[in-house]
């Protein structure tokens, strides 16, 4: 199963769905082309949550975004989580869905956040094996997100861009390129963004994430809590010039501003995409 961007529909620019903006989204002109929904929020959904999902689905293309599949877990996948995810994604039948190259669970412990996978052959084999298992249950194209990380795991023999590229080649998955995560890692770990981007197979870069974080103790924190900073916009322009991106999602989670601020950021991203002929 190959997820070349050229085979997927162009969705434009959208927003990670948050309850607070429900009224704005159902206005006459929300300025949103599609929505990303957090898959976990719709597991074991109450009647009202299910109705919400149906209303959203009637109005927007929805891209489910998983948080806890833990594709990097060497002990394998959680069968119940995978089952719930499969039920949701297969029912929605979106153009694609997404998860992270990360480990969120190991040894009976739920870490509570995305932690890195070692950038080496063993780490890659684990991710590829888990993805193949997922693809047996979820035929919808899967795209994989790069994460930020506090801990640089010893024993990495590949640079991150190369590591991701090889996973995409071996699984046929696309890439959800989180530009803010990439920028955060360049600041916190000295990652070279140009080297990272040049390692990626262009035809596999399907969607982008962007937002702003904050600085604490001399480090950038990927808090999804601030307006998008200019270096991230610059990086977005570079990425849109280089890759045939099909969609961009503004991923604001905390410190939620008035909707007009998010609309303005989506508009700016949409204009950037037009500059590089990604959409009309």
């Amino acid at each position, binding site marked *: 199963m190959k997820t070349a961007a050229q085979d997927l529909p162009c969705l434009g620019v959208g927003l990670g769905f948050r309850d607070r903006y429900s009224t704005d989204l159902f206005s006459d002109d929300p300025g949103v082309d599609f929505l990303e929904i957090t898959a976990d929020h719709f597991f074991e959904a*109450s009647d009202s949550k299910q109705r919400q999902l149906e209303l959203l689905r009637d109005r927007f293309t929805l891209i489910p975004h998983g948080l806890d599949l833990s594709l990097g877990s060497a*002990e394998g996948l959680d069968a119940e989580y995978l089952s719930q995810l499969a039920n949701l994604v297969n029912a929605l039948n979106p153009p694609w869905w997404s998860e992270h190259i990360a480990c969120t669970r*190991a*040894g009976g412990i739920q*870490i*509570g956040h995305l932690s890195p996978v070692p950038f080496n052959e*063993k780490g890659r084999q684990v991710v590829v094996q888990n993805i193949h298992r997922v693809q047996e249950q979820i035929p919808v194209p899967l795209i994989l997100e790069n994460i930020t990380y*506090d801990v640089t795991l*010893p024993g990495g023999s590949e640079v991150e861009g190369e590591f991701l590229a090889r996973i995409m080649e071996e699984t046929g998955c696309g890439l959800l390129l989180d530009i803010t995560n990439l920028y955060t890692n360049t600041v916190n770990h000295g990652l070279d963004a140009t080297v990272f981007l040049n390692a990626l197979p262009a035809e596999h870069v399907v969607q982008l994430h962007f937002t702003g974080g904050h600085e604490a103790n001399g480090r950038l924190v990927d808090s999804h809590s601030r307006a998008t900073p200019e270096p991230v916009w610059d990086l977005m322009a570079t990425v849109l010039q280089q890759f045939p991106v099909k969609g961009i999602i503004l991923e604001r989670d905390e410190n939620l501003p008035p909707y007009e601020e998010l609309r303005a950021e989506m508009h700016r991203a949409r204009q950037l995409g037009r500059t590089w002929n990604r959409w009309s």
Partner: protein
Amino acid sequence: MELAKEQAFLAKLYVDAEFRGQFFGAPKMQATAFGLRGAALDRALELDAEQVRQFARALLQKRWLAIPKLMPRTAKVMRARLREQFMAYAADHPVHGIHKHVTDALAFAQYLNTPEAPPELSYELGHLAALHSRAIWVFRWVYLRQPMKQGPSKRLVFWWRIGNGPLHEYWIH
């Protein structure tokens, strides 16, 4: 599988403050006691202590973000003291499950439930129990702060739901 063992070790390091302190106090002994050998042991000894502590702090902060939203009455009264108490509690109490934020908040509320706790906590204990259990009904005595009188007043509150429907709440006078 070696990587599975290593990841289990890392997960414990991230969420268990006591284990983390023991490891960085005696890295080789603790890693060996956990069962790491050879190259996996070498990698554990190369871990950057400050990076691991930074991630552990980030995990606690992420858990904390949900607490004021799920315990607004107690958060309003306790303010910064609530965060202090949560950070002390969370360091030794990892959380599990799909609806883990509710599980976490309920467990924390039960931890706070001492004679010194503010009366507002009584409401949150009932509300969170109703959210968490998904039982048909839950009831609890709730204590309300009364500014002009001595001591809180007591009311009985019922929470109920039908099937997968919304949670309802009714206060008995």
